C-alpha cells in the first residue's frame, strides 16, 4: 500500500524525471540517426540527417528543461527532494544558490551535458560536410552523460543518480529520526519537521564556486569536438582533411580548459587553505593532464597541416586528450581518490558506469585505427633537424612524457585497486612532482623559444644561429637581473627555469614585432607563448620564494635530535589588542565581527622603520571563520595585494563565540579577574599594565552617575582615568563615596581591555588615593591563531594567464578565417 504523505509537491519532480528520460532517449535516437546518415551512400537522401537534427534539438530542449526544473526546486527550497535538501538552504544568497546547483555530482553532470548540447547545436550549424560523423560521436557522448542522471533500476543495478530522487526514497527517515517517525502520523507529515536543507558546503561559499565549474566543464565538453573530428576522419577515410576544421575547436578547448584550471588555482589561493595556488593534488592533476596533451596535439596538428608529417602523433594526441578527460572524471567521481585527495567527490555507486564510459571511448578509436592501419598516411621519412615541424614534434613529445609522469603518480590508488597492491602516494607530493616537472618545463620553454627561428622543411643554419645567439645573450642578461631582483638565485633549477622562460618571452616578442610589420599570422601564437612563459615564471617565483612569516619561534626548543622531529611552528597566537612582532610586521588583533554564520577577524599589520621609528605601512586583513555545525571551524583567508607581492593570511584556530559568551555570563564579575593590583597614585601618575597605560587625572569632586544618589552630608569623589592602548584612548571614572561613617566605591569596567578599576581609599596626608586594578587572566581574553605567508611576484602568474588567453583568442579568430577562405 502506498502512504499518502502530506505537503509534498511531486509534479515538478515527475516533470524533471520525464525530461531526463527524454534527453537520454533523444540522444540515443540522434546517435542512431546520424550513424545511419553517415553510412548512407545516397547523398541526396537527407531523411536520416533530418531525424538526427530533430532528435538532438529535443535533447537540447530536454537538458535545458532539466536545468530549469531543478533550479525552480532549489530556488523554492522544496526539501522533499534529496538534492535540494542536500545542497541548498534558505540562508544562502541567490548567487550561492546558483553554486548549490552544481555542487553535487548530479548537478555537475548536468552542467557537462548542457555544454555538450550547446556545442553540438553549434556543430549542426557549422560542421557542414562533417556534420553527420561528428554529431554521431557527440550524441553518443551525450547518451552517456544523460545516462548518469537516469537513476533507474535495471535488474539489480541502478543506472545513474537522478537529481529528482525524493528525500524519503534516498534516506530512511525512520533511521534518521527514530523517535519522531515511529508515530505513523508524524511519518506522513515528515515535511513539517524538515524546516531547511543542509546548505552549501561552507568551503564552496565563494564566488569562484559560481564561475570555476561552468568554465571547467565547458572546457571538458569542448574536448569532445576535436576527438569527434578525428573519429570521423578515420571513419570516412578523410585522413588529412580533419585538421583544418578541428583546429579552432582544439584551440578553444585549450583556452577554456586552461582558464578553468587556473581559476581553480585562484580559488585554492583565495578561499581554500592549501597555503598556495597549486598543490599537485590528484584532482588538480587529473584536469591538468588532458590540457597539456591537447596543447601537444595542437602543435602537432599545425606541423601536420603544414608538412603532411606526424599524422599518427596528431591523431593519437587528440584521441588521448579526450580519453584523459573521461579518466579525470573517473578519478574525481568514483571515490577511488578518497585517501589521497582532499576534494574529490564520494562514490555514488557509479564506479562501473564511469569505467564503461572510459572503455567505450577508448575502444572505438583503437578499433578504427586497427581497421584503417594500412591506409593511414604515415610517413617513414626522417625529419630535417633544422625544421620547425621536427621541434614542434619534440616539444609535443616532451609535454606528453611530462604528462605520463604525472598520470602514473596520480593513478597509484587505481593500481592499488586493480592489482590489490598497497602503495601509498609520494610523501612530499610537491617536491616529488617538481623535481620532474621543472626540467620538463625548462625543455618546453627552450623549445618554444628557439623553434620560432626555424622554418618549415628546412632552415638556413647560419641565419638560425645568428638570431638564436643574439636572443640567447639578451636572455642571459635579462635573466641575471631578474634572478637577482626576485631572489631565486639560490637554486640551479630555478635559475635555469628563469632563463628558459626569459628566452621564450624574448624569442616570441621578436616574432611579435615581426608580426606587427606584416606577418600577422603569427601574432596569436606569439602572444599565447609569451603568456605561458609568464605564467610559469610567476608560478616559479611565487612558489620558490614564498615563506611563512608567522613563525612562532618562542616555542622553538633548540635541543639536539629534537630539532629533527619538530620545527618552528608556522601558527601564531594573538590576544586581542596586544601587538606582536612578526618578521618586519607588527600584527595586532583589533576586532571581530559576527555576521551569522561567519566571524570576521580584523588583523592590523604595521611596518615600522626601526631606525627612525616612522610608520611605513599600515593595513588591515579580515580573514573569516565559520563555526559550522556539521564541519567544525571553516576558515577562509584574506590577502593584501601589492604590485610585487601578496601577504596571505588565514585563521587556524579560534574560540567558539557562542560558548565563550555563555561561559562568561555564568560567573560573577570579580571572579573572572586575577587578583587585583593595589597602588597609591596621585594626579599625573602613569601606570603600566598589559592592557594599556593608565594615566591619572585631577580628582573630580562633583561626579555624576546614574546610581549615585547623594544626601546631605555625603561626600563623593571621582577619579578620572585615561587608558592608552596603541594610541587608542579609553576613559573611566571610578567613584569613592563617604556616607555617614561608611565608605562605598563604584567600580568601572572596560570590557574591551579586560580591565576593572576600583577607587578604594583617599589618603589626604599624602595627597594620594588608592586604586585597585583588576585584569583578566590572559586565558580569558579574546584570542586567535593564524598563519601568514608572503608570495612575491604572484601577479606575474595572473598576468600570464590573461596574456595567454588573449593569444588563444587571436589564434582562434585567425583559424576561423582560414576555414572561410577555403
Amino acid at each position: 500500500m502506498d502512504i499518502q504523505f502530506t505537503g509534498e509537491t511531486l509534479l515538478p519532480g515527475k516533470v524533471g524525471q520525464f525530461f531526463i528520460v527524454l534527453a537520454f532517449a533523444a540522444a540515443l535516437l540522434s546517435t542512431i540517426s546520424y550513424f545511419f546518415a553517415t553510412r548512407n551512400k545516397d547523398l541526396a537522401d537527407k531523411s536520416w540527417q533530418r531525424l538526427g537534427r530533430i532528435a538532438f534539438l529535443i535533447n537540447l530542449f530536454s537538458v535545458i528543461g532539466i536545468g530549469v526544473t531543478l533550479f525552480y526546486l532549489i530556488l523554492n527550497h522544496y526539501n522533499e527532494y534529496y538534492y535540494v535538501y542536500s545542497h541548498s538552504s534558505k540562508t544562502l544568497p541567490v548567487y550561492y544558490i546558483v553554486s548549490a546547483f552544481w555542487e553535487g555530482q548530479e548537478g555537475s553532470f548536468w552542467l557537462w551535458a548542457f555544454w555538450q548540447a550547446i556545442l553540438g547545436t553549434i556543430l549542426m550549424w557549422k560542421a557542414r560536410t562533417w556534420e553527420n560523423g561528428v554529431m554521431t560521436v557527440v550524441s553518443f557522448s551525450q547518451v552517456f552523460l544523460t545516462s548518469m542522471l537516469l537513476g533507474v533500476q535495471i535488474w539489480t543495478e541502478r543506472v545513474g543518480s537522478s537529481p529528482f530522487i525524493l528525500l524519503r526514497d534516498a534516506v530512511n527517515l525512520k533511521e534518521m529520526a527514530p523517535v519522531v517517525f515511529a508515530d505513523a502520523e508524524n511519518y506522513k507529515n515528515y515535511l513539517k519537521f524538515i524546516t531547511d536543507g543542509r546548505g552549501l558546503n561552507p568551503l564552496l561559499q565563494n564566488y569562484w564556486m559560481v564561475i570555476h565549474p561552468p568554465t571547467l566543464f565547458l572546457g571538458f565538453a569542448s574536448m569532445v569536438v576535436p576527438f569527434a573530428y578525428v573519429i570521423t576522419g578515420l571513419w570516412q577515410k578523410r585522413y588529412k582533411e580533419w585538421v583544418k576544421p578541428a583546429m579552432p575547436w582544439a584551440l578553444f578547448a585549450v583556452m577554456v580548459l586552461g582558464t578553468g584550471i587556473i581559476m581553480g588555482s585562484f580559488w585554492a589561493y583565495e578561499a581554500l587553505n592549501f597555503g598556495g595556488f597549486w598543490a599537485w593534488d590528484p584532482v588538480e592533476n587529473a584536469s591538468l593532464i588532458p590540457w597539456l596533451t591537447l596543447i601537444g596535439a595542437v602543435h602537432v596538428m599545425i606541423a601536420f597541416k603544414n608538412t603532411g608529417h606526424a599524422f599518427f602523433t596528431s591523431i593519437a594526441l587528440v584521441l588521448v586528450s579526450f580519453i584523459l578527460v573521461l579518466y579525470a572524471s573517473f578519478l574525481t567521481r568514483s571515490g577511488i581518490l578518497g585517501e589521497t585527495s582532499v576534494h574529490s567527490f564520494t562514490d555514488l555507486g557509479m564506479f562501473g558506469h564511469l569505467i564503461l564510459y572510459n572503455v567505450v571511448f577508448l575502444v572505438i578509436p583503437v578499433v578504427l585505427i586497427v581497421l584503417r592501419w594500412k591506409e593511414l598516411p604515415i610517413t617513414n621519412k626522417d625529419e630535417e633537424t633544422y625544421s620547425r615541424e621536427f621541434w614542434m614534434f619534440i616539444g609535443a613529445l616532451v609535454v606528453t612524457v611530462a604528462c605520463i609522469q604525472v598520470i602514473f603518480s596520480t593513478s597509484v590508488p587505481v593500481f592499488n585497486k586493480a592489482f590489490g597492491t598497497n602503495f601509498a602516494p609520494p610523501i612530499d607530493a610537491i617536491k616529488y612532482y617538481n623535481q620532474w616537472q621543472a626540467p620538463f618545463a625548462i625543455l618546453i620553454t627552450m623549445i618554444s623559444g628557439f623553434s620560432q627561428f626555424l622554418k618549415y622543411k628546412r632552415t638556413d643554419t647560419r641565419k638560425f644561429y645568428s638570431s638564436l645567439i643574439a636572443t640567447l645573450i639578451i636572455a642571459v642578461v635579462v635573466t641575471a637581473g631578474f634572478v637577482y631582483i626576485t631572489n631565486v638565485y639560490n637554486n640551479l633549477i630555478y635559475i635555469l627555469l628563469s632563463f628558459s622562460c626569459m628566452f621564450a618571452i624574448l624569442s616570441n616578442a621578436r616574432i611579435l614585432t615581426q608580426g606587427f610589420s606584416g606577418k600577422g599570422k603569427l601574432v596569436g601564437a606569439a602572444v599565447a607563448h609569451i603568456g605561458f612563459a609568464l605564467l610559469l615564471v610567476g608560478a616559479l617565483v611565487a612558489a620558490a620564494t614564498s615563506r611563512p612569516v608567522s613563525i612562532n619561534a618562542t616555542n622553538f626548543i633548540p635541543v639536539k635530535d629534537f630539532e629533527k622531529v619538530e620545527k618552528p611552528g608556522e601558527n601564531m597566537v594573538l590576544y586581542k589588542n596586544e601587538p606582536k612582532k612578526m618578521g618586519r610586521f607588527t600584527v595586532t588583533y583589533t576586532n571581530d565581527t559576527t555576521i551569522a554564520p561567519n566571524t570576521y577577524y580584523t588583523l592590523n599589520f604595521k611596518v615600522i622603520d626601526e631606525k627612525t621609528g616612522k610608520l611605513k605601512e599600515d593595513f588591515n586583513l579580515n580573514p573569516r571563520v565559520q563555526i559550522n555545525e556539521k564541519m567544525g571551524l571553516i576558515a577562509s583567508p584574506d590577502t593584501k595585494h601589492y604590485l610585487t607581492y601578496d601577504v596571505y593570511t588565514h585563521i587556524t584556530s579560534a574560540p567558539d563565540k557562542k560558548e565563550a559568551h555563555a561561559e562568561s555570563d555564568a560567573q560573577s564579575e570579580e571572579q573572572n579577574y586575577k587578583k587585583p593590583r593595589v597602588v597609591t597614585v596621585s594626579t599625573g601618575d602613569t601606570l603600566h599594565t598589559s592592557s594599556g597605560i593608565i594615566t591619572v587625572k585631577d580628582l573630580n569632586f562633583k561626579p555624576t552617575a546614574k546610581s549615585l544618589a547623594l544626601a546631605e552630608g555625603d561626600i563623593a569623589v571621582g577619579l578620572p582615568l585615561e587608558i592608552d592602548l596603541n594610541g587608542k584612548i579609553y576613559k573611566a571614572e571610578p567613584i569613592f563615596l563617604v556616607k555617614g561613617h561608611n565608605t562605598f566605591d563604584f567600580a568601572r569596567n572596560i570590557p574591551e581591555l579586560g580591565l576593572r578599576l576600583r577607587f578604594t581609599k583617599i589618603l589626604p596626608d599624602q595627597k594620594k588615593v588608592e586604586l585597585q586594578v583588576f585584569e583578566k587572566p590572559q586565558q580569558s581574553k579574546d584570542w586567535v591563531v593564524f598563519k601568514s605567508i608572503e608570495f612575491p611576484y604572484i601577479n606575474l602568474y595572473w598576468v600570464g594567464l590573461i596574456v595567454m588567453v588573449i593569444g588563444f583568442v587571436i589564434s582562434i579568430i585567425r583559424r576561423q578565417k582560414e576555414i572561410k577562405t577555403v
Partner: protein
Amino acid sequence: MKKSAIIGLITIAICVCFLVSLNADTSNYSTFTEAAKDSREFHVMGHWAKEKGTYYDALKDANHFSFYMKDEKGDVKKVIYSGTKPQDFERSEKLVLIGKMNSDTFYASKILMKCPSKYNNDLVEIKQDGQVKRYK
C-alpha cells in the same frame, strides 16, 4: 640509426626512470610497528582512539596538537602534530598520517582525514516539538 629510433629510445628510458623514481618515492601504507623500525617517513592508516581524547591548547602552544590513534593492526600510539587541530577532527572516520616514529610517539607532518559528514548523510534528530537538531 634513424632519428626517430633514437628519440623513441630516449623516451622509453625516461619513462623507465619515472617508474624507478615512483617506486623509490612510494612506500606502502604501514602500521606503527613498521614505522618504528626505520627513521624515514611513513603513511600510517587508522582511526582516532576517542576514549583517550585530544589535547590542543592554542594559548599555550598554537602548534602542538596530540591525540591517540589505533592503527589497522589494533596498535594504539600517541600522535603529535605540529600544527593546529585540524578542522572537523572529531568527526573523522578514518585517518591517514604521514610522519615518523620516535620513542613510541608518532610525529605527524600531515594528517589526511576521511569525514563522512562532508559529503554523506548526517544523522539528524528531530525533537517532539518539531525542532531539527544536528546529531553528533
